[in-house]
């Protein structure tokens, strides 16, 4: 019996000691660490991109590392930076953009990376709506748009037919969309509309698309302490309508992120504003669906303006050896290649980052075969962005979204009306923004 314990103890220490011997692979190439948050099928895409790039040259090896969800990845990056061991490239979600912009010397703008790495880089090659979202106030492009999406309206053609609606004509405006939803409900179907990402679609994009201010100071682009403007009459009307439709189930809330998709996929709800990036599930489910533009309000002057991207971009951490940035720049050039971008766009539902990839997809006849897939691109670049539609920046956008979601949930649960909900959201968000900005002063 003593021997058993001795063995137990010995094996424990042996296991711990083993750690010292886990071999580091031979460093013939320069490793480029790429931390990302892509799970599922997108994880495979990331792995394949790295593999493909690594096969094209032998100086650098891009190593993709999954770091959990978007917030987990951002946090791992920040923790690693503070511990002076950041990766080269980190994928940061749209709402983390403000945080990264506030990080100033922690990051290296990709415009600089490309220049120092000796790669040609021309901002105008990229889609304007995306470029402006990921650029500083002075126009310097800060991060590389990896996966950008735009909200569109998915609708179930079978449900439309059942309600006597034309399956080829999606609603153009919100009042129309709500009419359709009521008709669908009246035809005995369970639910007219649901929606993913209420804050991104019904607040941030709602403002940009209707050319309304989301916040002061160009939606926060020029200031650390913008004040939100999301309690205007049109905002209130929109949410009051949603709340009333929620009561009889014409509209059904489905969660803060994209959980609501399940309600659309199982044909429970007939319409759903959702990210263009979410198309994969609809295709895979084999349902008969159509895509329409994101609805707008005809009374809004200048609507529809342009949408602002969701998704994520790739940021480069500062403080690495110059040789490493050469590799990073090469990798971004590889990612910008027209065939790579066109392929990413066509398989994923994300927007192409470059104009050339868009043209290529047109030439391939991709949009004729897949009507609806061009809509998110057109929404993003139909018009030159205004002060209201360049993007939304606050250093703590994740927190602001949390606050908004909480107030919206209380509204949809019948605990308060839309005016109270949005007023509260503005008041609480402004206080939180002021508090968060203190750390940067």
């Amino acid at each position: 019996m003593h021997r058993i314990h001795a063995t137990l103890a010995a094996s424990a220490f042996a296991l711990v000691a083993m750690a010292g011997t886990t071999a580091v692979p031979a460093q013939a190439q320069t490793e480029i660490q790429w931390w990302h948050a892509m799970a599922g099928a997108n994880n495979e895409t990331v792995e394949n991109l790295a593999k493909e790039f690594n096969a094209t040259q032998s100086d650098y090896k891009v190593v993709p590392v999954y770091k959990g969800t978007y917030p987990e990845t951002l946090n791992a990056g920040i923790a690693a930076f503070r511990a002076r061991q950041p990766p080269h490239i980190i994928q940061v979600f749209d709402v983390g953009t403000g945080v990264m912009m506030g990080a100033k010397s922690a990051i290296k703008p990709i415009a600089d990376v490309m220049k120092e790495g000796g790669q040609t880089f021309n901002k105008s090659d990229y889609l304007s709506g995306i470029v402006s979202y990921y650029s500083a106030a002075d126009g310097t492009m800060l991060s590389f748009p990896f996966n950008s999406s735009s909200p569109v309206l998915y609708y179930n053609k079978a449900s439309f037919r059942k309600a006597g609606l034309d399956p080829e004509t999606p609603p153009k405006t919100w009042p129309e969309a709500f009419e359709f939803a009521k008709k669908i409900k009246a035809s005995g179907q369970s639910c007219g509309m649901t929606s993913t990402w209420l804050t991104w679609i019904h607040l941030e994009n709602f403002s940009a698309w209707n050319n309304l201010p989301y916040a002061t100071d160009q939606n926060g682009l020029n200031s650390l302490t913008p004040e939100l403007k999301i309690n205007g009459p049109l905002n209130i009307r929109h949410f009051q309508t949603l709340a009333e439709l929620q009561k009889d189930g014409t509209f059904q809330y489905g969660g803060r992120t994209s959980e609501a998709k399940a309600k659309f996929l199982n044909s429970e709800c007939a319409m759903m504003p959702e990210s263009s990036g979410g198309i994969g599930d609809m295709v895979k489910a084999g349902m008969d669906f159509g895509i329409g533009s994101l609805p707008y309000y005809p009374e809004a002057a200048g609507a529809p303006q342009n949408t602002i991207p969701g998704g994520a971009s790739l940021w480069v951490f500062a403080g690495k050896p110059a040789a490493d940035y050469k590799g990073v720049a090469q990798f971004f050039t590889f990612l910008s290649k027209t065939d790579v971008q066109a392929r990413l766009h066509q398989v994923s539902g994300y927007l192409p980052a470059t104009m050339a990839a868009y043209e290529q997809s047109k030439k391939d006849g991709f949009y004729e075969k897949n009507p609806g897939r061009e809509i998110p691109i057109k929404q993003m670049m139909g018009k030159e962005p205004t002060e209201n539609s360049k993007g939304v920046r606050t250093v703590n956008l994740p927190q602001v979204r949390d606050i908004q979601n909480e107030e919206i949930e209380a509204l949809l649960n019948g605990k308060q009306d839309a005016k109270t909900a949005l007023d509260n959201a503005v008041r609480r968000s402004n206080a939180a923004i002021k508090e968060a900005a203190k750390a940067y002063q």
Partner: protein
Amino acid sequence: MNRRVVFPNKLLPYLLVAPQIAITSVFFFWPAFQAVRQSLYRDDPFGFSSRFVGLDNFEMVLSDPAYINSLQVTVVFSLSVAVVALVAALLLAVMADRVVAGKGIYRTLLIWPYAVAPAIAGMLWLFLFSPAMGTLAVMLRDLGIDWNPLLRGDQAMAMVVGAAAWKQISYNFLFFLAGLQAIPKSLIEAAAIDGAGPARRFWTIVFPLLSPTTFFLLVVNTVYAFFDTFGIIHAVTGGGPGKSTETLVYKVYNDGFVNLNLGASSAQSVILMVIVIALTVIQFKYVERRVHYA
């Protein structure tokens, strides 16, 4: 808590505690000290500017209604999880102790959930109860229940309590069963001869004799409900709707990891440590004395 008979030895005890003290110092006290330090500063996320703000972070946290709310949520959540998990486990253990046939099979089938990781348990419960795709959610709605935990805080709470208690029942069950089997049968037989019925025997003999087990489980379940349920809440409700399932630990995570407010998050960690340390001391100093060591 002290033995009367001990070994006289000068050096040896220090050598024996050394490994644990070393690990505890490096991986507990040093980081805890860092957390305390951090709680007195206001940093930007990347650590460029760091300003000493004294107790500002604590003031901010304690005057925040959301913090008071998460304190209430934590109390309700922890109590519910501990009560549900302990009562269900005790009931099952008493039954399993009574049956003669199939005891082993029952035990084997009841202990499986213990081996499931919280991160995975959360995913499973989401699959069962999410209003859009959950099999059991569909059944609930067919029964005429307005099942909508995405908007109704009470239902969301029921869902996370269910998931958290589910995972803990097996563990408690095993301990209770072991405790029950350790009770000398002669004691119970003697009581039976005296004419005490099953219920009376349970309350006068079995339950008091189980008190060390119950005490231990109470500690373990409290710790569990406080900390190890993070993965479940994260996966099932994300603290919502509103803030109705945001526990203290979830808030530490959310303020630190999502909202990147390190000062506030550290201040909350420190408060949490103080609360938990106080609870531990109380448990050792007072509760333990009342516990019956058979």
